[in-house]
């Protein structure tokens, strides 16, 4: 089976951009945003194989789709997020809605429903969330009762309410999570099922082009063959199995939206003259509002791409990695959008420019598919196990890899990244020895530091690679400078905040701890960061010229 290659992927992204430029220019999107309107016609066109056929990417080839891989789909997610995160969410809901089917559906179910989605351009919605069951699905209230006819299981009657379902009011097909006698299970429910209704479209802070609605199910009958996998109680595993993948897509949303905001700010800053020169030439502006976000977004890109390649390889799950990607990239995107408003000053605060909308939109990426606090917890849990299992050697081993990398390429800051990883290992070990993880805030903070250290380490590897991935628009000198800045600043953050965390919750000597995490050495590595940022600012101006 041929997979989609980089040339095809590039052409798909070009087609998507060209379609958006033509059919949904910013003025149109702004109006839909103001009106809180779902562009049903646009979505149908995007699903039309004669126009774009975006949804075919997520359907396997044997069922009439294109069998897109993780890299293909994250690149499309990123491109969609640059256009409008509401539309992106609506497309993503179909991706998400089909996931339980792809992971857990029987052969016959996949054949029937995947083909139907492909051919009939079905919008799909993923119905998991309830009022009392958000990121934590254990309190699921929606019930599926068995209906037995002639002594045989004929189907289920589903009753309950779902909340904040993307595409809730507009989908053709729903995958609904409900508690069957055998446990939580996914059911395929068609829109016209008796007893099924969607509630009003929510009035949201952002992603207002995405339809979000509650669902009411009142004794909705579904035949037994619409229980995904045809075995009860598989629902949570089926949901869990794809988290690594789906959260990576949300990471791409954060990155894409953040890049769009950042680029708008960079372009603007070259035209806006203040105090005798363009803002783009002023360090106080660029090194605060532009460069840090460019670095974090580029680090996100490197991480997302690396994990996507692993998922496209033989690896499965990667739930901790998915959580790291989602956490880091959506925070990066959200922060970039926030500062893009500041960067555009009064203009940024108006609706004439896209940045305030991006800011409202991108916030959702910090919330859905598990809030970023759930991500912190997930990351901590995953890596804490590794730390314990390896007797504290997990990050020491990773640090050794980076030292080896530094020996080959001294330009990417791998030595600093190694220092950061060693500091992290030491902080984790102190937390273990002092049992500090009984404090929830410590565990969450550890999740944050782990994410930062791992992303920075990966960024060094990416920046040192022979060839850059197709999404990178900056040149080698700039990527290396970004990698250095990221590694150095992250090492400092991990060491200093780690010390703060340990001393805040436990006991110990600040001086000893500082020495243990090599704080002075890490501080020493901060030399040259300003110069690197000067270079990054200049390269950004070169790459994103005013239109």
């Amino acid at each position, binding site marked *: 089976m041929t997979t989609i290659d980089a040339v*095809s992927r590039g052409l798909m992204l070009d087609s998507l951009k060209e379609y958006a430029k033509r059919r949904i220019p910013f003025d149109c999107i702004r109006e839909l945003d103001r009106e809180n309107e779902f562009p049903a016609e646009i979505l149908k066109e995007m699903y039309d194989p004669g126009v774009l056929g975006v949804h075919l990417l997520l359907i396997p080839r044997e069922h009439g789709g294109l069998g897109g891989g993780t890299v293909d789909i994250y690149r499309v997610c990123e491109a969609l997020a640059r256009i409008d995160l509401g539309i992106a969410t609506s497309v993503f809901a179909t991706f998400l809605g089909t996931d339980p089917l792809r992971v857990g559906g029987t052969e016959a179910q996949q054949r029937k429903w995947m083909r139907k989605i492909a051919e009939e351009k079905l919008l799909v919605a993923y119905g998991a969330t309830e009022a009392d069951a958000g990121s934590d699905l254990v309190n699921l209230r929606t019930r599926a009762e068995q209906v037995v006819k002639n002594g045989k299981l004929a189907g289920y009657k589903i009753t309950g309410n779902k909340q904040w379902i993307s595409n809730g009011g507009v989908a053709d097909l729903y995958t609904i999570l409900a508690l069957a006698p055998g446990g939580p299970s996914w059911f395929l429910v068609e829109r016209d099922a008796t007893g099924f209704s969607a509630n009003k479209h929510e009035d949201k802070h952002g992603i207002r082009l995405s339809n979000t609605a509650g669902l009411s199910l009142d004794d909705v009958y579904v035949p037994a063959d619409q229980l995904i996998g045809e075995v009860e109680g598989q629902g949570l595993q089926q949901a869990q199995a794809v988290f690594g993948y789906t959260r990576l897509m949300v990471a791409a949303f954060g990155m894409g939206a953040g890049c769009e905001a950042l680029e708008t700010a960079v372009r603007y800053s070259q035209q806006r003259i203040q105090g005798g020169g363009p803002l783009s030439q002023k360090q106080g502006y660029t090194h605060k509002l532009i460069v840090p976000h460019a670095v974090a977004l580029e680090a996100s890109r490197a991480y997302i791409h690396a994990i996507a390649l692993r998922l496209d390889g033989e690896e499965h799950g990667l739930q901790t990695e998915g959580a790291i990607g989602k956490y880091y990239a959506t925070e990066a995107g959200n922060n970039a959008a926030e500062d893009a408003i500041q960067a555009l000053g009064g203009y940024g605060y108006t609706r004439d420019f896209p940045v305030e909308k991006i800011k409202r939109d991108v916030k959702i990426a910090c919330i859905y598919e598990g809030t970023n606090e759930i991500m912190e917890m997930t990351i901590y849990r995953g890596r804490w196990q590794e730390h314990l299992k390896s007797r504290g050697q997990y990050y020491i081993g990773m640090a050794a890899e980076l030292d080896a990398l530094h020996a080959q390429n001294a330009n990417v800051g791998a030595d600093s990244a190694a220092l950061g990883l060693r500091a992290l290992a030491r902080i984790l070990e102190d937390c273990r020895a002092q049992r500090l993880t009984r404090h929830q805030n410590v565990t969450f903070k550890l999740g944050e530091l782990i994410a930062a250290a791992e992303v920075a380490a990966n960024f060094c590897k990416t920046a040192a690679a022979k060839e850059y991935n197709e999404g990178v628009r*900056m040149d080698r000198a700039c990527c290396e400078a970004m990698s250095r800045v990221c590694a150095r600043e992250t090492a400092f953050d991990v060491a200093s905040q780690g010390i703060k965390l340990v001393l805040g919750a436990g006991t110990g000597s600040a001086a000893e701890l500082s020495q243990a995490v090599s704080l002075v050495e890490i501080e020493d590595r901060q030399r040259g960061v300003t110069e690197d940022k000067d270079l990054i600012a200049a390269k950004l101006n070169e790459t994103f010229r005013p239109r």
Partner: protein
Amino acid sequence: MNIVVCIKQVPDTTQVKVDPQTGTLIRAGVPSILNPYDHFALETALALKEKTGAEVTVISMGPPQAKTVLRLALALGTDRGILLSDRAFAGSDTWATSYAIARAIKKIGKADLILCGMMAIDGDTAQTGPGIAQQLHLPQITFCEHVAVSGRKLTAKKLMDGGHEIVEAQLPALCTLVLPADYKPAFPSFPEIAAAQEKDLELWTAADVGADENLLGLKGSPTRVDRVYAPPQRARGTVHQGTAAELVEKLVCILKEENFIKC
């Protein structure tokens, strides 16, 4: 009928900038696109294919990454794609380029109609199309807005200064195309792009087309670039601000000072 369309991958010149200090092009982050004129020539060929069942071959000369535009052409419905790629072609001016492409078209064999964009947006020369026509000894119709074929008769609507002409010629012939107003290039759908990936893309070298290496590249090009530099900048004039009424007064003063209206 066999149609050959000549296409080129170009940097999107609306995004190219020049470093005013060094006078060099800043290409960082500038996307490569299919030359819009060629895109329209391709669409013209595909429309003719629709009507007449013609077979459309698309040919491009460039570095290996230029295969992207051939893939795009295949995704849009072209039957065959050929990339002329060889170090020997590097540095070719319009003469050497016309020569190489003409050689390739000879190798393709029977070409009834050759379509080219009127020019490429990076070079802006409009010389390659007529050059190919001359090399192949074909009649040429340049600056066409529209091309129609009926049997062996070609009818074209072409621009001339101050108006347009309708002209006719017998096939084989070569036409170059201008862009219609408000041109929106067609783009392929995802499944069309995926299908194009399965199609064969032929790679031809200078030797494959029997081109004389002395007539290619810098060696074969009669023109030489002596120097490249940033366009001279005008001194920034005086900029006035104020209410609409104040600005109107200002304008009247300026028009008087510059003698466009009498005092």
